[in-house]
């Protein structure tokens, strides 16, 4: 019998949306999980940029996907072939209004926390803090500092540039180089 998760990975976004919309709530957990796996990282990235807060971005991803699934079940997504646009539009709406409702968050957590859905490719989803810490420590000092200031302290290039006495353009160049090295180091360790 084929693995249902593996089968769903080959299904288009539109077909996935139609399967969720066509099934009664409670009967499409695998499809909902697949939709979450596909889109939550994109919504989280959207939230990281627009909400400027990693925790708020996490919340946004959960709320947007829960609302999307609710709307699909209710037959309120009129064009399932445009499910990606629906999710992006919902992300924009919820981020602008900052309508993060704890009830939705709790409901989604209850739904997904007991599943084993991977939200990223296995090679990177299995990262542990020790490995990433070792790779961060292996970066040269300035590169590591730019990564930490950008993605941990959430500082923008002009402020980092001021702190380090370089131009914002140099910060961008350093960030590209540092993140590429960090990714290669982390993935190298994950594959070994």
């Amino acid at each position, binding site marked *: 019998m084929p693995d249902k998760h593996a089968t769903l990975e080959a299904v288009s976004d539109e077909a996935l949306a139609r399967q969720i919309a066509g099934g009664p709530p409670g009967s499409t957990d695998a499809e909902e999980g697949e939709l979450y796996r596909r889109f939550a990282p994109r919504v989280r990235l959207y939230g990281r940029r627009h909400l400027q807060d*990693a925790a708020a971005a996490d919340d946004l991803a959960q709320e947007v996907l829960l609302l999307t699934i609710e709307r699909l079940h209710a037959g309120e997504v009129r064009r399932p072939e445009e499910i990606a646009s629906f999710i992006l539009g919902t992300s924009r709406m919820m981020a602008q209004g900052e309508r993060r409702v704890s009830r939705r968050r709790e409901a989604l957590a209850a739904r997904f926390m007991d599943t084993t859905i991977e939200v990223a490719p296995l090679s990177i989803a299995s990262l542990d803090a020790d490995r990433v810490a070792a790779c961060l*420590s292996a970066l040269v000092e300035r590169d590591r500092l730019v990564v*930490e200031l950008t993605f941990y302290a959430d500082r923008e290039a002009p402020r980092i540039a001021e702190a*380090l006495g370089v131009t914002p353009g140099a910060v961008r160049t350093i960030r590209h180089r540092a993140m590429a090295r960090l990714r290669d180091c982390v993935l190298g360790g994950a594959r070994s």
Partner: protein
Amino acid sequence: MNPPGCERIGLAELIDYAAREPEETQAAAFEEHLFSCADCGARAAEFDALVRAIGPAIRSGKVGGFVTDDILNQLAREGIRVRTFTLSPGAVVPCAVWEDDELIAMRLRADLGGASEFTMSQRVAGTEVLRATGQAQTAATSRGELIYTLSASWVRQLAAVDIEVLLSAHEGGEERPIGSYTLVHGGSFHR
């Protein structure tokens, strides 16, 4: 429809987007493509996982090095226990590391002058165990202070021993010592 093997959004574009580099109009076009392209979405998922792993790694206290007050402030906001030592050149201070400390921050004061780089050498019982070179930071230079962090768990596992820290500045192609500091480590403390 997604083009097969689409590579329109790569690591560089994802980094810039997350770092809020592009203008809003460019960002909106980026988002339209990101949400409709499975290939780019998969790369975004990998990038998202990498970025999300940075915070836990830093919070683990295992990433040492030169930092700024912005980093220390974020650690404090997240409840990380940072033990701070403010050290002037020649200082010899007891190094009290408690069992629940997660990070040691050394504020190394010195005449930083117009140096472009600094090297911190750390010796335990006379043997160099760590050497790190960092570039000058505008804020640090104006304050006459560099901040270096160490893993508290690493310090805790040391026997009672002196930890010597030597700071030197690189200026005009030459390296000159600008500070020597000693932490007298008496072992781990328990509450």
